[in-house]
């Protein structure tokens, strides 16, 4: 298969904005958990959440131009600008650039706001602005409009498998020569709806910290953010790392074979039932890490995993796993291959194998 490389990274999350903030949070194992207040049948409750700040977007886009842009699209815009800047492509000719965005849930705050307009105002008062911005590809549209990206654009929504699924198609675009680079990213937001669903499923006792491998505890904490990568074919130039393969499938088709010479980067996020599947899938004693407690539980976290792996491979050094006690061996001192593993539902899986250049 065509080998891809990661040329640029743009990240925004609860840890802060940009590669340096992300790297220091990973190095320190620092989790910055905030909260969101949600109305419930029993009054307003506070739900722990990893919140992202998009104020840094004003470095790239005038505040006035962002008046009608919702939080979901702002996150995507911030991730996009940061990734292109990191790759040295801001201001460059983007004529051969494709855009691929993955999102588990889309613009949930705007979707809910549209419903609110329908409910509170009646059938004749639905908000056209909210409706137009609630379409899943609104973030891709805003990124394309603001940055002037006129190549192919794709938005994928496959819930927890959104990121690896979208990566399959991004890789094909590059393999077939449709584009010379792909701005690939993932975005999800914390909204009242997402927080309320979290509260209903796991409340009222919310944990203060994620412990993804504590099989007895429901410890997921919702997160939001954007993680974008600039991907190109391997041209021998400088880059963070290579992406050697992307595999998606389900275990009832058999065939989930994991490499034994790579650090396993696990997407466990505190959901008990999923945590058990990771424990069953990866051999005890394997070299593994899980960085989800740095950015929180969200479908887009899979792209943060890829960004973290890219940084680790560039440094040649894995970050210590902040995931708490687990049945896995400590991280190796040096790392040259990382396999990002994502599990979803009762049977779906995805692996992304990345390597040092």
């Amino acid at each position, binding site marked *: 298969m065509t080998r891809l490389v990661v040329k640029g990274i743009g990240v925004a999350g609860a840890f802060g904005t940009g590669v340096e903030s992300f790297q220091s949070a990973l190095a320190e194992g620092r989790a910055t958990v905030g909260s969101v207040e949600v*109305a419930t*049948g029993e009054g307003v409750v506070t739900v722990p959440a990893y919140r992202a700040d998009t104020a840094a977007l004003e470095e790239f886009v005038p505040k006035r131009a962002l008046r009608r842009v919702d939080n979901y699209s702002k996150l995507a815009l911030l991730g996009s600008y940061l990734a292109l800047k990191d790759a040295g492509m801001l201001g460059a000719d983007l004529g051969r650039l494709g855009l691929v965005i993955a999102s588990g*849930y*889309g613009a949930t705050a705007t*979707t*809910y706001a*549209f*419903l*609110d307009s*329908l*409910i509170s105002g*009646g*059938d*004749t008062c*639905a*908000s*056209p602005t909210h*409706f*137009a911005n*609630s*379409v*899943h*590809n*609104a973030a*891709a*549209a*805003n990124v*394309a*409009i603001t940055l*002037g*990206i*006129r*190549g*192919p*654009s*794709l*938005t*994928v*929504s*496959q*819930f927890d*498998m959104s990121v690896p*699924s979208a990566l*399959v*198609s991004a890789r*094909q*675009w590059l393999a*077939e*020569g449709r584009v010379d680079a792909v701005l690939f990213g993932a975005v999800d937001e914390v909204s009242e*709806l997402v927080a309320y*669903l979290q509260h*209903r499923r796991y409340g009222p006792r919310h944990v203060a910290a994620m412990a993804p491998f504590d099989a007895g505890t429901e410890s997921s904490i919702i997160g939001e953010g954007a993680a974008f990568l600039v991907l190109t074919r391997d041209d021998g130039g400088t880059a963070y790392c290579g992406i050697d393969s992307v595999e*998606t*499938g*389900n275990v*009832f*088709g*058999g*065939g989930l074979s994991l490499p034994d010479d790579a650090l396993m980067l696990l997407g466990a996020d505190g959901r008990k039932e999923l945590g058990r599947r990771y424990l069953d899938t990866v051999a005890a004693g394997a070299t593994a890490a899980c960085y989800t407690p740095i950015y929180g539980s969200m479908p887009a976290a899979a792209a943060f995993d890829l960004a973290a792996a890219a940084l680790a491979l560039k440094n040649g050094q894995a970050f210590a796993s902040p995931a708490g006690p687990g049945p896995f061996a400590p991280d190796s001192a040096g790392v040259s291959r990382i396999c990002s593993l994502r599990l979803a539902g009762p049977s*779906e899986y995805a692996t992304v194998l990345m390597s040092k250049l």
Partner: protein
Amino acid sequence: MTRWPVAITGLGCICAAGGTVPECLDSLYAGRRAPAPPERFVSSHPTPFPVFEVRDFREPPELLRTSALAVQAAREALADAGFSAAELRGLRVGVCVGTTVGSALNDEGFCRAHRAGEEPNLFPMERILNSNPAAVIARAFDCTGPCQTVVNACASGTDAVGLAASWIRGGICDVAIAGGADELGRITYHGFISLMITDDSPCKPFDRDRKGLNLGEGAGMLVLESEQVRARRGARARSFVMGYGSACDAYHLTAPHPEGAGLRQAVAEALACCAVAPDQVCFVNAHGTGTPDNDRVESRVLAELFPGVPYHSTKGYTGHTLGAAGGIEAVFTVACLERGLVPGSAGFANADPELAGEPLRGNLEVTGGLALSQSLAFGGSNSVLLFGKGDAA
């Protein structure tokens, strides 16, 4: 840039024009359509905007209607391709489905109850999370290949077919089920009314008196197959995906670029895939929604890029089925190319002097070997598929 063709061996469709592909074609060739105010949901809006509902189809309670429609069309397409369940299990089968509402967390009843201070049952949300259209098809037919739900608004179905063809070419899967699916409900209905782009009478694509679109629902699915698998099975190709192109306008969230910049680029890419000249295309299934903006831009691009090539819109028979439209229209394009007969554009009566051309008024026999289907979408997404004639029956 040349990309080799990918065989299409099965078609499936369910929409207001019919519950199967043959039923739909009968409606199209007879010029039959029946838009009417919604019956499946209520609205207090004073204007009863006509829609194209699928009336005789009921989804199981545990699934979104979108996904149930998708499975129905996929089942027909697989049967048409001659695949048994056992045969499929031995292959790496991918699923790529376009939709607009199939993965949105937007249940009105849930939101209404939450807003009223109640603790609503979580079932509607769980149903959404269990109804991702591509994942539902994969579960229904035990597909083990890549699985992707494309949410490129109204171009989603077209993109899904183009992407699936690329997966086959790349060896990522042996067989792919690809297309689009979308249901119609209160949220979409009132959302489009709020944008003031719906017609309060049956839609009239490309007509002088067009006032907007009518919404519809349904699903259109195609089975794509690698040459190795097809040769082993001795399966007949009904058509081939010869080209696919897509490009973004980068212009406006809901309006197309006035010069059709992205559409032109998408057409150019699709034709370049197999080095085809525009005059080799024997007809175009246009997006043709009936909105003033879309039809103005699209007719201009068609007149300039495809002078003299007949084009039609099938939305007069189906309504605008949003994420399903690209899948349904891909099915129609393939079936019409195969039969050599292109239906006229229902709803078109009076040529618009401001448009550069006019669509087919009645059915037209064609003998060419290539046809195009194109989609324009919110967000400035433009996608184009080029189909080639398949093996002789």
